[in-house]
C-alpha cells in the first residue's frame, strides 16, 4: 500500500507506472521502471496495460461504454482475442468482482460501488500481473467500500496478482498483510515490509478522532428548520416527510448509501432545489457557506487571491493567515485550478468559511485529505461551532462523522434522525452495521 500526505505524488506515481506520464502528461522522467523485468522506456502505454492495470478514483469517469458486459469486454476486444475468449474472460471477471447479476445492466444505472466493481472487473479482464488501485474507495459509501476491500482480499488470496493500493483509509487493508511505501514531497520517506496499527499511528497515518464537544448554549431560534420535506427525481422519491431542526453551533452529520439524497438535501437547504412538499426555513442570513463534492466546479478566478475576492475583499495579512492554516501558504498568486484536488478542496472550504455565514454545508470535505488536513478542517468546524455557526457534514467516514457531530441523520430506505448514539443503535438494529463506527473499529481490530 502507498500512502502519504495530500499532494505528495501518489497519483502521479500511478500514472508514471502506467506511462501515462510522460506519454499523455508531458514531464521530465528519470530513472527506470521495470515490470516483470521489462523496462517500460521504449514501449507504449497500451502495451504496458497487458501487464499493469490501473483502477482510478472516480468510478464515473473511467467507464466508456453503456453496458456492463460490453465495458468488461472492452479491453479483451482491444487485444483482438477471439469472441469465445472475450466471453470467457468477461464471465470470469464479472464473477470475481461479484457482479455477474449486473451483466446486462446499463452502466448509467449503477451505484458508485457497483461502478467501481465494474472498473475492477474490466481491468482484471486484461489479465495483468499487477493491479494498481488509486484511492478506489474514496467516493464510496461504507458498504461499497467494504465490498471493494473484500474483492482486494480475494484477489490477494488467489496469489495471481500483485496489488498496489493508494489509500488514505489504511486500516481495512492491514488484514491483507501489506507492505507500506510512504511518500512525502515526491520522495519515499518510509518503507515497511509489514505494518500494524501502531506503525500507522507512529507514521501519522491513522488518527483516532476522539473529539469532545462542549455543551452549546441554549438558543431561542433554530438556524435551520426542515419541516415535512419530501423530494424525488422523476417520480422516484428520495425522502418523504423529513423533519428536523438545527440549532446555532450544532453539527449534524449526514450519512447513508450513495444515491440516498444526502447531496440533494444540502441543495434543498441552499435553495438550489425546491421541495415537492414541506418547508425549509433558514434564519435571516441569506448567505450559506457551501462546499461541493467536486471543488473545481466552484473555482472561477485566475488566482487564489482573486478567488477569495469574489466573496468580498480580503486583506493581504488575513489572506496569508487563512492560506497558512489551510496549508496553502505561498499560493496567493497561483492559478487555483493548478492545485491538486485536495488543495482545491481546502481552498473552497477556506472560502466558504470566509463568508462568515450562520450555516455551513460541507459535502464530503474529507475526501483526499491526509490526517493533518483533516485535523485542520475539524479545528475550523469546531471554531465555527463556538461562534454559533450550524454545520451539516455529509461524509462516508463514519468514525470521524460520529465523533465530530452533535447529531446524526441517516438517509436510506428509511431515515433515522436524532442523538448520535440513538441513531447508531437504530442502524445496528436495522442491520446497517457498515454505517456504525464500531463496525470499522472491529475491522481494524
Amino acid at each position, binding site marked *: 500500500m502507498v500512502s502519504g500526505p495530500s499532494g505528495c505524488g501518489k497519483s502521479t506515481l500511478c*500514472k508514471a507506472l*502506467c506511462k*501515462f506520464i510522460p506519454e*499523455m502528461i508531458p514531464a521530465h522522467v528519470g530513472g527506470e521502471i521495470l515490470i516483470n523485468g521489462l523496462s517500460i522506456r521504449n514501449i*507504449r*502505454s*497500451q*502495451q504496458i*496495460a*497487458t501487464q499493469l*492495470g*490501473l483502477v*482510478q478514483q*472516480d468510478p464515473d*469517469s*473511467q*467507464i*466508456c*461504454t*453503456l*453496458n456492463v458486459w*460490453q465495458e468488461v*469486454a*472492452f*479491453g*479483451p*476486444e*482491444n*487485444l*483482438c*482475442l*477471439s*469472441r469465445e475468449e*472475450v*466471453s470467457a474472460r*468477461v464471465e470470469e471477471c464479472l464473477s470475481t468482482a461479484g457482479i455477474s447479476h449486473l451483466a446486462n445492466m*446499463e452502466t*448509467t444505472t449503477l451505484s458508485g460501488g457497483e461502478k467501481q466493481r465494474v*472498473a475492477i472487473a*474490466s*481491468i482484471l479482464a*486484461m489479465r495483468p500481473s499487477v493491479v494498481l488501485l488509486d484511492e478506489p474507495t474514496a467516493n464510496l459509501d461504507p458498504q461499497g467500500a467494504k465490498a471493494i476491500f473484500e474483492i482486494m482480499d480475494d484477489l490477494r488470496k488467489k496469489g495471481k496478482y500483485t496489488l498496489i493500493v493508494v489509500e488514505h483509509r489504511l486500516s481495512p487493508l492491514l488484514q491483507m498483510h501489506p507492505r507500506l511505501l510512504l511518500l512525502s514531497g515526491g520522495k519515499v520517506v518510509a518503507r515497511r515490509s509489514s505494518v500494524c496499527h501502531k506503525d500507522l499511528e507512529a507514521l501519522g497515518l491513522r488518527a483516532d478522532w476522539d473529539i469532545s464537544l462542549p455543551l452549546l448554549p441554549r438558543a431561542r431560534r433554530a438556524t435551520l428548520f426542515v419541516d415535512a420535506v419530501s423530494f424525488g427525481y422523476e417520480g422516484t422519491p428520495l425522502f418523504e416527510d423529513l423533519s428536523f431542526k438545527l440549532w446555532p453551533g450544532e453539527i449534524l452529520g449526514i450519512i447513508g448509501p450513495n444515491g440516498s439524497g444526502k447531496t440533494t438535501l444540502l*441543495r434543498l437547504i*441552499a435553495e*438550489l432545489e425546491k421541495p415537492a412538499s414541506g418547508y425549509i426555513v433558514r434564519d435571516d442570513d441569506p*448567505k*450559506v457557506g*457551501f462546499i*461541493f463534492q*467536486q471543488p*473545481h*466546479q*466552484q*473555482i*472561477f478566478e485566475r488566482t487564489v487571491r482573486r478567488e477569495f475576492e*469574489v*466573496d468580498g475583499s480580503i486583506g493581504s495579512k488575513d489572506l496569508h493567515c487563512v492560506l497558512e492554516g489551510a496549508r496553502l501558504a505561498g499560493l496567493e498568486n497561483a492559478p487555483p*485550478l493548478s492545485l491538486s484536488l485536495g488543495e482545491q478542496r481546502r481552498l473552497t472550504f477556506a*472560502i466558504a468559511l470566509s463568508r462568515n455565514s450562520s450555516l455551513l454545508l460541507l459535502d464530503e470535505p474529507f475526501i483526499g485529505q491526509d490526517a493533518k488536513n483533516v485535523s485542520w478542517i475539524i479545528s475550523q468546524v469546531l471554531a465555527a461551532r463556538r461562534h454559533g455557526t450550524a454545520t451539516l457534514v455529509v461524509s462516508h467516514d463514519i468514525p470521524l462523522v460520529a465523533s465530530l457531530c452533535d447529531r446524526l441523520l441517516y438517509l436510506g430506505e428509511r431515515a433515522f434522525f436524532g442523538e448520535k448514539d440513538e441513531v447508531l443503535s437504530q442502524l445496528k438494529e436495522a442491520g446497517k452495521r457498515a454505517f456504525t463506527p464500531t463496525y470499522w473499529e472491529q475491522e481494524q481490530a
Partner: protein
Amino acid sequence: MIAKVSYHKGYAGLHRVTPMANVLLLVGFLVAVLVSPSILVKLGVFLLVIGLLVISGERVGSFLCKTRFVLLFGVVLFIAQAFSIREGTVLLSRGFVVTDCGLLAGAQMAFRFLVIFSSSILFVLVTDPDRLAHSIEQIGIPYRYSFVLVLSLRFVPFFRKEYRTVRDAQQVRGINTSIHGFAGLLGSIRYTLFPLLVSGLMRVDSIAISMKGRCFGLYAKRTIAYKEHWQRADWAVLFLFCLLLATSALARKYAWL
C-alpha cells in the same frame, strides 16, 4: 431546448431492430422530407414517426413534452413564413396579408423542421450507441471513429449536469452571470465556460487513461464480441425505407400537393 433525450433500453418496435436499420430509417425520413415537395407526404412522415414512437413503447405525451420547444419553434416558423410571403391568392388582408403560397410555404418549412427533429429524437431514443458503434465497425469503418460517436453521446448528459452544477455554484457564491452587454458576455464566458471546459478536459483525461489502460489503439483492428444479425424486423424497416424513397420520388415527379 430538448429535455433529457437519451437512449434507454426497450424491447418493442424499433428497439428490436439493428442500429444500422435505424440509421437507414432515419436517412429515409430525411430524404423524404428534403426531396419531396409534397406537404401531404411530410405530414404522413410526421405521423409515421409518431406511430413508430408508439410501437416502440415510447409515450407520446412525454415525447411532446420533451420536444415542446421544437414544436413551438415549428409553429413560429409557420407563422413567420405565412406572414412574410405575399405571392399567390390573398386569403386574408387585415393590415397584414396571408396568401395561399405563404400558408403552403409555412407548412412546408414547419413540417420539414418537425420531421427532421422528431425523427432524430426517435433515432436517439431507440438506438443503443454501443451497438451502433459495433455496427459501424462491422461495416468496415475504423473503430476509432465509431468510438468518437459513443463518447460524444456519453458527454451530452455529462455537460448538461455539469452546466447546472456550475450555475448553482455561481448562485451559492452570489455571482451575477446575466448577459447584459459585452462585459456581461465576457463575465459569463469566464464564470461558466471556463469551469465547464476544465470539467470536460478532466473527464476527457480520465476516459483517455481508462481507454488506453485497456489497450485501445494498440492494434489497427479489434474484436467485436457482439455481432449484429439482420432479422425479420430489419427487413420490415428496409421495406419502409424503400417505400419512403419511392413515395418521395413519385411525389416529386407528379408534383403532389
